[in-house]
């Protein structure tokens, strides 16, 4: 009995490793974080360029199982937490969510934040019939809600279940995060903050597990952190070249 089960385990390990999901704890030493400033403010009247590519590194070894700080920070910043009282749990917005993964054979569990991975080759952009789903020059994947017709193709195309659809009329939105009924939405990497030279709200709330910065700048905090230690893309097999990377899974 032991041999087939080992084989099955090996196969599962293989699959999960490919899928970038944890099979066990990859114990890492505490990350060495350089205090290099990540973002320099671009003048407000200058367009974003492809000279930068914004990314986030998630060190899941720092994620406590009951911690929800990044999700709460996103809710507060972008105003989506309790804005849809009439929608079911499945319908509610989830710009970022806490996901628990479990190794079935060992029972080991791990919690990690899941949100838009800001792919270089985003499937949501490929399928959008109107051009509403687009990738900004600096790598942030967004929905132009002025053009979105609410068809939800992008929601089905996204391998990360990162997008959600607003099912009911909303009130008291944040001026910097407009959102409304009939349009699809997802993590914007807090583009309104990034454009000011600040870090996204989740990264501000949890600097221990989350690192933000320019992936093209080899001296940036995130590039240094990724150079120093291993990190993976989730579903790397899809060749999407995600802007959000994970460590410890």
């Amino acid at each position: 009995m032991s041999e087939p089960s080992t084989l099955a385990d090996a196969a599962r390990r293989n699959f999960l490793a490919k899928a970038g999901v944890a099979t066990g704890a990859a114990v890492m030493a505490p990350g060495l974080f350089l205090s290099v400033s990540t973002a320099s403010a671009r003048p407000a009247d200058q367009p974003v360029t492809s000279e930068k590519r914004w990314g986030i590194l998630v060190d899941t070894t720092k994620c406590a199982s009951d911690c929800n700080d990044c999700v709460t920070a996103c809710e507060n910043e972008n105003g989506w937490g309790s804005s849809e009282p009439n929608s079911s749990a499945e319908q509610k917005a989830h710009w970022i969510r806490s996901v628990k993964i479990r190794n079935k054979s060992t029972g080991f569990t791990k919690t990690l934040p899941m949100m838009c991975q800001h792919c270089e080759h985003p499937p949501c952009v490929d399928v959008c019939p109107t051009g509403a789903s687009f990738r900004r020059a600096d790598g942030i994947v967004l929905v132009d809600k002025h053009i979105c017709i609410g068809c939800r193709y992008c929601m089905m195309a996204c391998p990360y279940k990162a997008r959600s659809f607003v099912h009911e009329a909303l009130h008291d939105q944040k001026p910097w995060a407009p959102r409304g009924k009939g349009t699809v939405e997802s993590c914007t990497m807090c583009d309104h903050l990034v454009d000011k030279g600040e870090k996204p709200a989740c990264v501000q709330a949890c600097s221990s597990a989350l690192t933000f910065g320019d992936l093209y700048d080899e001296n940036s905090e995130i590039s240094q952190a990724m150079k120093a230690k291993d990190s993976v893309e989730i579903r790397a097999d899809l060749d999407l070249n995600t802007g959000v990377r994970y460590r410890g899974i």
Partner: protein
Amino acid sequence: MSHRSPASRILALLLLLLPLAATADSEGEAEKEALPFSDLSFPEPARHFSAEQKCVQPVEEMRKNHMNYILHQRDETVHEGIRTRRYALEECVNCHTAQDDKGKYIPINAPDQFCYSCHSYASVKIDCFECHATKPVRPSTLQTPASTTSSTNSDKLSNDIRQLLASEGPAQ
């Protein structure tokens, strides 16, 4: 006809035109009274761009072309991350929302408020505020008002609009 004198011709013409002129006058008066929306009043903007310039562009320009400024800014902001404030919708809201007796902001998309009072007159449905904030949330970054003496001409805008409507009235 050819044997009539010029004087009698003019007299006949005047006699013909007199009743017409009279009716035109009285009709004009009646129409002005009954003109729909002629009692429209708009909440006065809370701030002015400068003493000389009330809005980010001259008022006449904004009346005709405000939508173009907002549309242009919208695409630049969403797609290119250009976040200049001058033509940002948020700044429209910052100036043009009114406060109630208790000092609470009234949503700008309420029926009698700045946007919708005019848009309902023009039968133009706008859906800006299904997504965008309808009340000021953070302080404006635009120029602060040069003077706060706007109370003296607090009805300036509505007077202007009234005059505009009155002058356009007979053409309708």
